[in-house]
C-alpha cells in the first residue's frame, strides 16, 4: 500500500466514520477527530523520512485508471513542494481540533467531520497529478470550508461563506474550461505527461492560446491566493470563520492558489507567465503594500491578520514571478511559513476570543499582565510574522526579496516597504491588545494558557524557530522541485520571449 495513499485516505475514512458517531456524543467525535488527525500526522511524518532527497521528480506515485473515456486517472504523487504542504495540512489539523475543543459545542459532530473532510480535500489538492483529479480535490475542499464558515462562524457568517464560495467558484469554472481545453489538445489529463509533451515540443500552444489558458488557470489561483484586487472575500471569510476554519483557510487553503501557480502556470505556460509577470508583479506589490496599510487600520484582530495575509501572500506570488531559483524557493518557503505563523496568529486570536468573546482590539489591553504565556506566544508569533531573523518568515522573505531583486531590483524596493509596514501593523496590534493597563475585565476573563492550549501552541512555536534557524531541514527538496519548475519554464517556451539577463546571470552563479 502506497504511503501517500494512506495519508490521503485516512482523513476520508475518518470523515465517514465520524458521520456514524451518534450526534449526542459531541465529545466522541471530538476525540475521534483528534485521534485520527494525530494518527494521520504521525503516518505522514514517514513521508519526509522516506522521501528520497536525491531524486528529482515525483515520488510515492500511484496511478490507477479511474474513468476510461475521457482518460481520467487517479494519479497522485508528490514532489518536494507538495511534501511540505501535505505535512503542513496534517500538522495543522490536530492543532485545529485542539483549539476547537471547548469552543465548538454546538453540532460538534458535523464540525469535526467537516474538518476531516477538509483535510482530505487539501491533501488531495497538493498531490493530484491528474488535472481532473486536481480539480475534483480543489472543489471538494471548498465544500467543508463553506460549511465550517457558514455554520460555526460569527454574526455575518452566511454572507462570508457565500462570498467565499462564489468568489472561488467564479475562478474555478474558468480553470475547468482550461483543463478541458488542455485535454482536448493533449489527449490526457496527466500533468507530468503534458509537461513532457510541452518540453519535447510534441505539444505547443500559439501565443494567444497560451495566454488565455494561462489566464484561466491564473485567475482561479489568484482568487484563492488572494491577489489584489480579488482579495475581498478573504477578510470576510476570516473574520466570520471559527478559529479552526481561519487556521485551515489561511494556512493551507490559500496555498492552493500559490501552489497552483507554481505547479501548473509556470511549467505549462511559461511564455504567458513571463509576458504577464510584470503585471502580476505590480499587483503583488500593490497587494503587499495595500494589504499592510489596510491591515494597519483594522479595528478587528482577525480582519487585521486577514489583511496581513494579503500582504504576505503578495510576497509569495512576487517570488514566483521573479523566475529565479531564490525567488521560487523563497516563495515556497514563505507558503509554509505563512501557514505556520499566520495559523498560529489565528489560533491565538481564537484563544483570546474564546476568553473574552470579542475580536475588537479596543476591548483588550493589558493582556500581557493577565496572561503572560499567552502573550509570549503571541509575541513570538508576531515577531515571526514580521520577519524577524531566526524565525521562519525571515528566511522566506529574504529569499523572495533577494530573488526578486535579482530579476528586477525596482520591484524589490517596493516590496521591501511591506516589511516595514508589517512591523507597523503587528506591533501596533500587539501594543493595543497586550500592553497597557489590564482592566478588571481583562484580569478576570483572560486566564493564561491551559495544558490543551499549550499543546496546540507549542508545536507551532517550535516550528517557527526550527524553520527559522535550520532551513536546511526543509529547503533542499523544495529547491529540487523548484529548479525543475524553472527548467521547465525555460524549456517550454514555444515562442521567443525576452528573458531577463539578470535572472540568467544569477542562475549562472
Amino acid at each position, binding site marked *: 500500500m502506497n504511503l501517500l495513499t494512506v495519508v490521503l485516505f485516512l482523513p476520508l475514512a475518518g470523515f465517514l466514520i465520524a458521520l456514524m458517531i451518534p450526534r449526542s456524543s459531541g465529545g466522541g467525535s471530538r476525540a475521534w477527530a483528534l485521534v485520527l488527525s494525530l494518527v494521520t500526522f504521525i503516518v505522514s511524518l514517514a513521508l519526509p523520512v522516506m522521501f528520497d532527497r536525491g531524486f528529482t521528480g515525483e515520488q510515492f506515485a500511484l496511478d490507477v485508471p479511474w474513468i476510461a473515456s475521457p482518460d481520467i486517472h487517479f494519479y497522485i504523487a508528490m514532489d518536494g513542494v507538495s511534501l511540505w504542504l501535505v505535512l503542513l495540512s496534517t500538522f495543522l489539523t490536530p492543532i485545529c481540533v485542539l483549539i476547537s475543543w471547548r469552543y465548538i459545542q454546538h453540532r460538534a459532530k458535523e464540525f469535526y467531520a467537516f474538518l476531516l473532510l477538509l483535510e482530505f480535500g487539501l491533501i488531495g489538492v497538493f498531490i493530484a497529478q491528474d488535472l481532473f483529479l486536481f480539480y475534483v480535490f480543489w472543489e471538494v475542499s471548498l465544500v467543508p470550508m463553506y460549511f465550517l464558515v457558514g455554520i460555526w462562524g460569527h454574526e455575518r457568517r452566511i454572507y462570508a461563506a457565500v462570498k467565499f464560495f462564489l468568489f472561488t467558484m467564479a475562478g474555478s469554472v474558468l480553470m475547468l474550461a482550461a483543463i478541458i481545453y488542455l*485535454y482536448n489538445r493533449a489527449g490526457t489529463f496527466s500533468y507530468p505527461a503534458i509537461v513532457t509533451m510541452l518540453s519535447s515540443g510534441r505539444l505547443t500552444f500559439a501565443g494567444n492560446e497560451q495566454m488565455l489558458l494561462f489566464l484561466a488557470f491564473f485567475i482561479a489561483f489568484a482568487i484563492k491566493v488572494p491577489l489584489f484586487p480579488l482579495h475581498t472575500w478573504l477578510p470576510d471569510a476570516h473574520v466570520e470563520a471559527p478559529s479552526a476554519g481561519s487556521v485551515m483557510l489561511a494556512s493551507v487553503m490559500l496555498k492552493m492558489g500559490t501552489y497552483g501557480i507554481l505547479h501548473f502556470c509556470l511549467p505549462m505556460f511559461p511564455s504567458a507567465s513571463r509576458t504577464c509577470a510584470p503585471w502580476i508583479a505590480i499587483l503583488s506589490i500593490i497587494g503587499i503594500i495595500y494589504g499592510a496599510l489596510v491591515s494597519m487600520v483594522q479595528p478587528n484582530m482577525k480582519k487585521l491578520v486577514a489583511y496581513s495575509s494579503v500582504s504576505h501572500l503578495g510576497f509569495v506570488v512576487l517570488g514566483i514571478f521573479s523566475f529565479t531559483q531564490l525567488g521560487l524557493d523563497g516563495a515556497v518557503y514563505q507558503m509554509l511559513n505563512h501557514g505556520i505563523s499566520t495559523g498560529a496568529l489565528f489560533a491565538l486570536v481564537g484563544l483570546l476570543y474564546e476568553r473574552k468573546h470579542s475580536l475588537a482590539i479596543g476591548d483588550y489591553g493589558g493582556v500581557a499582565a493577565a496572561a503572560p504565556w499567552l502573550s509570549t506566544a503571541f509575541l513570538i508569533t508576531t515577531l515571526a510574522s514580521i520577519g524577524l531573523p531566526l524565525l521562519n518568515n525571515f528566511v522566506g522573505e529574504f529569499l523572495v526579496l533577494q530573488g526578486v531583486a535579482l530579476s528586477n531590483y525596482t520591484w524589490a524596493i517596493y516590496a521591501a516597504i511591506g516589511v516595514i509596514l508589517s512591523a507597523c501593523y503587528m506591533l501596533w496590534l500587539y501594543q493595543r491588545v497586550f500592553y497597557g493597563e489590564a482592566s478588571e475585565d481583562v484580569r478576570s476573563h483572560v486566564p493564561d494558557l491551559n495544558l490543551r492550549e499549550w499543546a496546540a501552541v507549542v508545536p507551532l512555536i517550535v516550528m517557527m524557530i526550527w524553520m527559522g534557524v535550520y532551513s536546511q531541514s526543509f529547503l533542499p527538496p523544495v529547491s529540487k522541485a523548484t529548479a525543475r519548475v524553472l527548467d521547465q519554464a525555460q524549456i517550454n517556451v514555444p515562442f521567443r520571449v525576452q528573458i531577463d539577463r539578470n535572472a540568467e546571470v544569477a542562475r549562472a552563479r
Partner: protein
Amino acid sequence: MPVSNYVNTGDMIRFLPEIILAIMGTVLMVLDPVLQKRSSNAFGTISVFSLLAALAASAYAYQNAGPAFGGMLTVDGFATFFRILVIVVGILTILPSYRFLARQDAETSEYHALLLYSIAGQCLMAAANELIIVFIGLEISSIASYVLAGYLRDDKRANEAALKYFLLGSFATAFFLYGVALIYGATGSVNLTMVRAAITGSNAPSPVFVGVAAALMFVGLGFKVSASPFQIWAPDVYQGAPTPVTAFLSAGPKAAAFAVFLRIFMTAFEPISNGWEPLVWISALLSMTIGNFAALLQSNVKRLLAYSSIAHAGYVLVALTARSDVGTAAAMFYLAAYAFMNIGAFAVVSHLSGKGERYQNVDDFAGLGQKQPVTAAMLAIFLLSLIGVPLTGGFFGKFYIFKAALESHLVWLTVIGLLNSAVAAYYYLRILVVMYMHEPSEAANNAEPLTPGLSAALILPALGTLLLGIFPSWVLDFAGKSSTLVK
C-alpha cells in the same frame, strides 16, 4: 414467426416495454374498484413492479436491437438509454408519491395509470424513428402529463398549471405538427432516415424550406424541453403542479423530448447542422442565462427549481450545439444525472411541503439540517450536484458537456456556460444556507418522519447522483456507445 406481413415477433419484442406499461396501466384501472378502498398503496407497488418489468423488457429489447414496424421504431442503444432513463424516472416519481397522495387524500389508481401511460409515451418517443410516431408519443406523454398536472382538482394552483400546460402545450404542438407537415411536403416522407436521405439526395428540396420545417419542429421540441425562448410556461406549471408530478415533468418528458430532439436534429437535420447550430447556440445561451438569473430572486423552491431546470436545459443544448457524438453522449449523460438530482430535490420538497403543499418557500427549509439531518444531507448532495461540485453526477455531466463543446471549438459558449454555473451556485447556496445555517422553521419542526418509501426516494437518487459522479464510466460508456445514431 410473423404475426402478419407487417408485424413479427421481433417487432413485438422491441415494442415490449410500451406494451407492458400500457397493459399494466389498464390493469390498474381494472383493479381500481377492487383495491381502491382497501389498499391504496397497492397501486404504487404494482406500478413499481410494472416499471421494473418494463425496465427488464427494455434490456431484453436491446438484446434484440434493430428497427421495428417497418422502420417506425428503432431500438438501439440510444433508445434503450432513454427508455431506461424515463422508466427509472417513473420509479423515482412513484416512491415519494405514496406519502404525497395519502397526505392530499387523492386517488391513487388513476394517478399511477396515467403515470404508466405517460412513461409508455416517452418510451415510444425514445425509440421513434418516424415523425408521426414522435408526434403520437409526444401527445400520449403530454396529455397524460396535463392530467397529472391538474390531478389535485380542488387545488387552484394545480388547475391553473394544468390549463397553462395544456393550452400552451397544444399550441406548441401545433407548430411542431406544422413542421412535420412541411417536412412531409418537402421530402415525401416522415421517416427520419428517409428524410435525411431526401435532404442529401440529388433531388434535394430547397434548404430554406427544410430550414423552416426544422424551425417549426424546434418550436415544438424547444417548448417541451423548456428551452429559451419557449421556456416561459415552465415556472408556472412547475410551481402549480403537485410536487411529485413536477419532479416527473422536469425529468421524464424533458428527457424524452430531448431524446427526440437529439434524434431528429442529429439524424434527419444533421446535414443542415451548419444552419441550426447558431440557433441552438443562442438558445443554449439564453436558456442558461435566463434560467439562472431569473432564479436568483425566487423565494418559492418549486419555482426556483423550475428556473433552474430551464438553465439545465440550456446546458444540454450546449451539448447539442457541439454537433458531435461526444456531444450527444454528454447530453445523454447529463440528462441522466439531472434526472437523479432534480427528482431527488423535488422529493425533499414534496416531503417537506406538508398537507396542501403549504411549505414551498426557501425559508421553510430553515434548520432542516438540525431537525432531519439525513433528509438535509440528501438535499445537500442534490444541490451540490446541481451546482456542479465534483464527485457528483451534475459535475461530470457539466464536465462532459463542456468538454464536448470545447472539442467543437465552442470556447465562448463554454466560458459563458461555466460562468453561468457560478451564478447558479448562488441560488442553490441559498437553500443550503437556510437549511444548515438558520434556526429551524415551522416547516422543519413539523416535518413528518421519513417513511420507507420516502427514504428510498431520497437515498436512491442520492446514490445515483454520487455513483454518476464517482464512477461515471458505467453510464458514460453506454452513452458513448449509443451516441452514434443511425443516419
